[in-house]
């Protein structure tokens, strides 16, 4: 547990958070790992976790009938994976698959949700950080949608 605490408190995502609040998060944390091609979660399943990726690469995918799944985005070492645990109906929108051996710290979102409800200061700190992540993903998605390298982007 001491090790988890050190890793989390040093992570840029939690920079500036109170020691007590980090403690609360540590209470919901556990070490996990996934083999290549193993799924971290699948579309439609209850979303009760999020991950600090410590090593490896995870691809966020969606399944399209009659063809290979489409990779929407990849998440690398140092990045945060998953925000669906924070907003109702608490279900994953996409599949997350380990592209290679991936180690991560999993945080129990359900546990954290309850703690955030009880402690709104904590809730705000968590919300603030996830809002940033969601905004970044939205920005990237918009840029992706523009298909800026494609042919005939006009007319």
């Amino acid at each position, binding site marked *: 547990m001491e090790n988890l605490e050190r890793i989390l408190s040093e992570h840029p995502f939690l920079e500036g958070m109170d020691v007590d609040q980090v403690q609360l998060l540590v209470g919901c944390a556990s070490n996990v790992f996934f083999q290549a091609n193993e799924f971290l979660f699948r579309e439609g399943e209850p979303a009760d976790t999020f991950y600090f990726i410590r090593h490896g690469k995870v691809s966020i995918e969606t399944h399209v009938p009659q063809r290979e799944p489409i990779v*929407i*985005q990849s998440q690398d070492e140092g990045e945060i994976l998953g925000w669906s645990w924070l907003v109702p109906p608490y279900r994953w929108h996409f599949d997350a698959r380990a592209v290679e051996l991936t180690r991560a710290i999993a945080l129990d979102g359900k546990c954290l949700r309850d703690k955030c409800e009880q402690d709104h200061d904590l809730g705000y700190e968590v919300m603030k950080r996830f809002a940033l992540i969601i905004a970044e993903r939205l*920005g990237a998605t918009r*840029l992706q949608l523009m298909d*800026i*390298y*494609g042919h005939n982007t006009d007319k």
Partner: protein
Amino acid sequence: MATTPTSSPLHDVRDGDPMLARPFQIRRTRKDTYDTVSLQLKPPDGDDGFPFEPGQFNMLYAYGVGEVPISISGNPAKNDSLVHTIRAVGAATRALTSLKVGDSVGVRGPFGKGWPVEAVAGNDVVVITGGIGLAPLRPAIYQLLAHREEYGKVVLLYGARTPEDILFRRNLEKWRSRFDIETALTVDRAARSWKGNVGVVTQLIPRAVFDPLHCVAFVCGPEIMMRFTVMELIKRGVAENNIFVSMERNMKCGIGLCGHCQLGSSFVCKDGPVYCYEDVRDSFRKREM
């Protein structure tokens, strides 16, 4: 540190007629992707090479069809092989990309101001490219690596549309295996067989390792990609006068006389295409300039 791209009239440009195309023979062709071809041209007999600066371009003429500005994508240290990488998007580029070894291409140039590779020695250099934008930066990467000891960290971030659109795979593989250049690439979309990054090139910037306070960025890609890239670089603390971008405008003459490429007060063909971001900030913000 403010640096301005260096001008390089390598010969007296007032000699001779700058509108006359010289026929160069195609020595080799390479199909880079399904729509992109590199042509290696041989300067005509009697010429000793074709000196150019990274970031400069030539006007290439496909006999009878038309002329287009194309950046030089080869190694500036290798004068005997003049390489251009051309994506087939219009009549002239389609004609150029379907030429064969031994065919002739009309060449005028080199034109424009390039990347200030020499002037930024001592800094970390982050090269950020999107799509065909890797082509005008390859000569700069060659030059950086040829004088590797003069720079701090060298980082290449490259975004392509799909894995099938990735240019210069052989170069990329070589650079990835070197310890003195960090190379990251990403594609906008991919099928599951792709093991690399998926996402826009701007997402690679927070992950890259460089010192924003002693860093110069060379950025080339579609204007919208450059806009977001510059935003991300500034967010990381890179100074506006340390960011260089390559602008694209309609060019008909290459010598500042036809008026088409005007960008505010400047002519992209002779005052650019490479600009210090500080000098073209307005054109990124103002519409339809």
